[in-house]
């Protein structure tokens, strides 16, 4: 019996030591923050923290925001840190609050619609802390700045791109039929906002282009996404499909590879998934928007209490133009896209969003 007790005690002690040392490590690389609550603590180094409500490594949203944090740390000379909250939703509120109540950080970067209520609650109780919120709207809180990405503007570019591809004669898989495809996850307003932008973009190039739209019904059924895209390619004679369906949409991208046609990715840069078939992607540039917001915060001009919709001009969205884009997309289309992007940024082209 005594032996057993001794074991339990030593294990307990060991775990306490481990936990303590882990805590110590985490705290080492963050210098104590100034207690001031001014928008921009002039002359002092800003401490920013990114609270991930999930884990890094999703090759999407969170990784993109993380890149933004690292970049902001380098370019703006601020102290940055990221804390992963894990996938258990019940931990998020406590995790975020412990970051905030430690008063080590001047500004907290956090995002996604799942965090709205938690951030609203904590922001109200800690009015001295500043929050930068991405990918959804929080308005009317004096210490929260939120930013939204204009999917209609990004989809306008995707639509214009698709219309240029279907009319192109250099691309060998482009057929004479002026049909382009759209595969959405569900028939819901936010997806239809993508679709509305896509149609406007296609009709800007040529009002005669037909858009075939299909919905999968969820965001996971990849085989169905593939089946719908195959049907659009084979029977509707579409030559390019734009997918807005999360994981299920990857099936649509694969379909373009199987039949040797083209597709457009979404959310992040999906060009490398099937090089030569996924010609470009409509990416939400969360990294760029985080750097921008932190930069404005540093200058003291970030408009807390408001929400901003970031379009092309603010660098919130854009088509992914990597080496694969340069390699597989004909020069004529590239030039035309640059031209359209300039017009969109200058306000010469206005895209209507169905959400407003």
């Amino acid at each position, binding site marked *: 019996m005594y032996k057993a007790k001794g074991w339990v005690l030593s294990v307990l002690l060991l775990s306490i030591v481990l936990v303590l040392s882990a805590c110590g490590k985490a705290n080492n690389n963050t210098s104590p923050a100034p207690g001031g609550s001014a928008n921009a603590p002039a002359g002092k180094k800003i401490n920013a923290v990114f609270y991930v409500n*999930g*884990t890094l*490594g*999703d*090759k*999407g949203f969170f990784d993109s925001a993380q890149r933004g944090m690292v970049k902001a740390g380098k370019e703006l000379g601020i102290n940055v840190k990221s804390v992963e909250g894990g996938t258990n939703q019940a931990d998020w509120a406590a995790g975020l609050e412990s970051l905030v109540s430690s008063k080590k950080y001047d500004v907290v970067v956090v995002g996604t619609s799942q965090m709205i209520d938690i951030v609203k609650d904590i922001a109200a109780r800690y009015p001295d802390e500043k929050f930068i919120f991405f990918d959804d709207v929080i308005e009317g809180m004096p210490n929260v700045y939120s930013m939204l990405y204009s999917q209609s503007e990004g989809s306008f570019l995707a639509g214009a791109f698709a219309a240029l591809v279907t009319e192109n004669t250099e691309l060998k898989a482009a057929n004479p039929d002026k*049909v382009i*495809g759209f595969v959405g996850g569900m*028939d819901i307003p936010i997806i239809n906002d993508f679709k509305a932008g896509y149609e406007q973009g296609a009709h800007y190039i040529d009002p005669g282009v*037909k*858009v*075939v739209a*299909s*919905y999968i*019904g*969820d965001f*996971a*059924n*990849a*085989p*169905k996404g*593939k*089946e*719908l895209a*195959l*049907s*659009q390619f*084979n*029977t*509707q004679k579409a030559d390019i499909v734009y997918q807005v369906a*999360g*994981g*299920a949409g*990857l*099936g649509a991208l*694969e379909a373009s590879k199987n039949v040797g046609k083209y597709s457009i990715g979404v959310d992040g840069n999906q060009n490398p*998934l099937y090089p030569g078939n996924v010609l470009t992607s409509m990416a939400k540039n969360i990294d760029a928007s985080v750097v921008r917001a932190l930069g404005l915060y540093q200058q003291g001009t970030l408009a807390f209490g408001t929400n901003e919709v970031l379009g092309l001009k603010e660098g919130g969205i854009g088509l992914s133009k990597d080496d694969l884009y340069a390699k597989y997309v004909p020069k004529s289309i590239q030039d035309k896209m640059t031209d359209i992007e300039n017009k969109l940024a200058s306000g010469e082209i206005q895209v209507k969003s169905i959400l407003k």
Partner: protein
Amino acid sequence: MWQALWTQIADLTLIVVLLRLMTPILLSALGGLISDIAGVINIGLEGLMLLSAFTSIAVGAATDSWVIGTIAGVAASVAMCYVMGFFSIKLKVDIIIAGFAVNIFGSGFTVFLMSKIYGLTGNYSPENLNPIPNVVIPGIQDIPVLGKLLSGHNLMVWISLIAVVFCFVLLYRTPYGVHLRSVGEAPAAAKSLGIPVGRVQYSALAWSGVFSGLAGAYMSMGMTSMFVKDMTAGTGFLALAVVLLGNRNPVGIFFGSLIFGLASAVTTIVQTTPGSQVPSQFIQMIPYVVTIVALVIFAVRKKRKLLTQAS
């Protein structure tokens, strides 16, 4: 819309799409059938398919062989079935609860493994995967109608059709089949005749693991070449409905899956018709409405038959 439908029936695209969509439902329904007949209805088909879909693509990509991948997927699924059997047959846990546990486990564990092995959270698509091949029959391939009808289908489509015959023979033409059915009908009577009830039920669960394993491997390595979190999207539950729709017999299940596959194929065609005025939610309902209608027709006919027999 009707014209689009007609042209696709005429050029046999519908049949090709139908066979592709029918295969996973048919395979997992056959698995559900064997377990149901032996009285240990396996409602964990969905979870088993997910497990197999992930295991097969992970092993298949690592070994560069779809054969090893498929075998690994089936093995994982069968192993899970034995665990299920251990809990329900040995420890007397309710089989429905064990099935639910498998579904939840399959969904969670595959995502967990994906994040631990590949560091990914949503989906896994290996670059150089050697997928389950399509069977191209040399001579027939070039004959106009017959070519499209018989050639170019995925190997798993043929396996699923052979599986129907296999199940029929297994259930109705072998002593083992008689044991299975008797164990399901009256376990106590079977036991009194010296049939090892527990062992037969274990084996029935293992069979359901084999078939849902094949279905899972087909989803990740045949229909697509990727694993997406929760990619089965309810196929396992449809398969359970098909087991009942098919009157618990392999041929009936074949026709049940056919009806369901046909409805899904029609859905796909209608959905991709440009300028369709029907709201997409209604179109997505087609397979389920068709199932209910088929069930009603079936029930009415069965009742009439009973009435005529009685009078």
